């Protein structure tokens, strides 16, 4: 590789993924650039969430799941036999469709990961909680409610808390699987705004059914269909002049 070309944050090479006999990903190759937001779009069942879950090996938890091909993080295989999966998931955090805070206090939700990874304790841990909550714009509103149960927060606050929980372990990459689908439009806009702030420090990959959201938040967009990555390119180009007719049909609403 030439010296002036940056190594991609994530590099997927010839990835096939099977759930038993069913092939969910077919020869997927792509590169995710550092500190950009990449959106994956496509109809239900196209494999976009499956692809997202290969990035932190969440599919390992599914019985009968087989992965062929490779995913590299910073040039190192994440499927190498000696790879520490806990460490991988610390570096690649995930936010899910529905906010899923632990049934613990606000403080504990954020502190939990940092503590079990041995990142900090005592005052240093307090500082991590404050920084993480501040990064998602929750600190000023919740600093006096740190002992409240996280489940008493609003949906948007819960989702922000889940993002703060990921940030507390200092990841490189944020995976977001439909992070706004349970939120109202105003809360959605605020989370999107937050993503724009976070992308200065993190690489973000978002799966979304909402094409306008992909168009609004991402710099790169990949379109998937029936397990294949049909095309990936700058978001503006994918939505105004897609190269593949199938992408054209999907983004213009012609797809049945």
């Amino acid at each position: 590789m030439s010296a002036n070309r940056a190594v991609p944050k994530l590099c997927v090479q010839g990835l096939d993924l099977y759930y038993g006999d069913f092939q969910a990903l077919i020869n997927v190759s792509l590169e995710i650039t550092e500190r950009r937001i990449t959106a994956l779009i496509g109809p239900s069942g196209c494999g976009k969430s499956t692809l997202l879950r290969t990035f932190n090996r969440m599919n390992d938890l599914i019985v009968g799941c087989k992965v062929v091909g490779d995913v590299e993080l910073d040039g190192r295989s994440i499927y190498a036999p000696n790879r520490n999966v806990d460490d991988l998931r610390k570096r690649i955090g995930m936010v899910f469709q529905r906010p899923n805070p632990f049934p613990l206090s606000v403080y504990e939700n954020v502190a939990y990961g940092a503590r079990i990874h041995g990142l900090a304790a005592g005052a240093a841990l307090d500082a991590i909680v404050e920084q993480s909550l501040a990064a998602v714009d929750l600190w000023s509103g919740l600093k006096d409610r740190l002992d409240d149960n996280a489940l008493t927060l609003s949906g948007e606050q819960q989702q922000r808390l889940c993002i703060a929980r990921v940030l507390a372990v200092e990841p490189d990459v944020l995976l977001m699987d439909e992070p706004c689908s349970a939120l109202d439009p105003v809360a959605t806009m605020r989370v999107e705004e937050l993503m724009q702030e976070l992308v200065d420090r993190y690489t973000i990959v978002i799966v979304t059914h909402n094409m306008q959201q992909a168009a609004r938040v991402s710099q790169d967009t990949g379109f998937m269909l029936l397990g294949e990555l049909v095309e990936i390119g700058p978001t503006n180009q994918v939505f105004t002049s897609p190269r593949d007719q199938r992408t054209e049909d999907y983004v213009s609403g012609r797809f049945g």
Partner: protein
Amino acid sequence: MSEHIYKPFDAELRSLKDMILAMGGLVEAHISDSLRALVERDSARARSVIEADRQVNQMELAIDELCVRMLVLRQPAASDLRFIAAALKIVTDLERIGDLAVNMGERALALCDEPPLRAVVDLPAMASSVQKMLRDALDAFVTRDDAKAETVLAADAEIDKALVQIFEDVRAEMKKDPANVDRGISTIFYAKHLERLADHTCNVAEMVVYLVRGQDVRHKTNR
């Protein structure tokens, strides 16, 4: 191209195309009338062009409204978005072309009562080249033919040359005899309107290239 899942959008896109074509047909007729008004010294025809411009303006408003409605309600993407974006630009140029047909009608009116200058003989040839450009640009829009749109863009250089030639000829006539000055000025204006008309036609053709290829070819040499 296959149909949209949401059928009314297909009907709206078809109707937008029809409206652009109807507006294009109307301004073509106005150009042709203002040329006949000049050649046949027909002041009634010149006045009818001036009067009929209202219809062109109304079509511009109706097309703009439809485009904005589709943008907000259908949130178009890909070739639909390019089509609507191109339509919004094209409609502005067609309206300007309509205005230029009116300006030509006004000049024709001014020239009606006097015999033509020698140079006026060249105006119909220039006009017919411009008319062909506009016809081709509108055809290219309907058939999404970017190659044809490129031929329109290439034709503009000849129009610019024709204008320079008419300037030279009319200036010579005016120098020869001050009695030619009034007619000369109107003739130069008429030719200038035609040349501007070709420029607006080129804008339409550039939008056709954008529509088909998603590529912006405007201001190639002056970015």
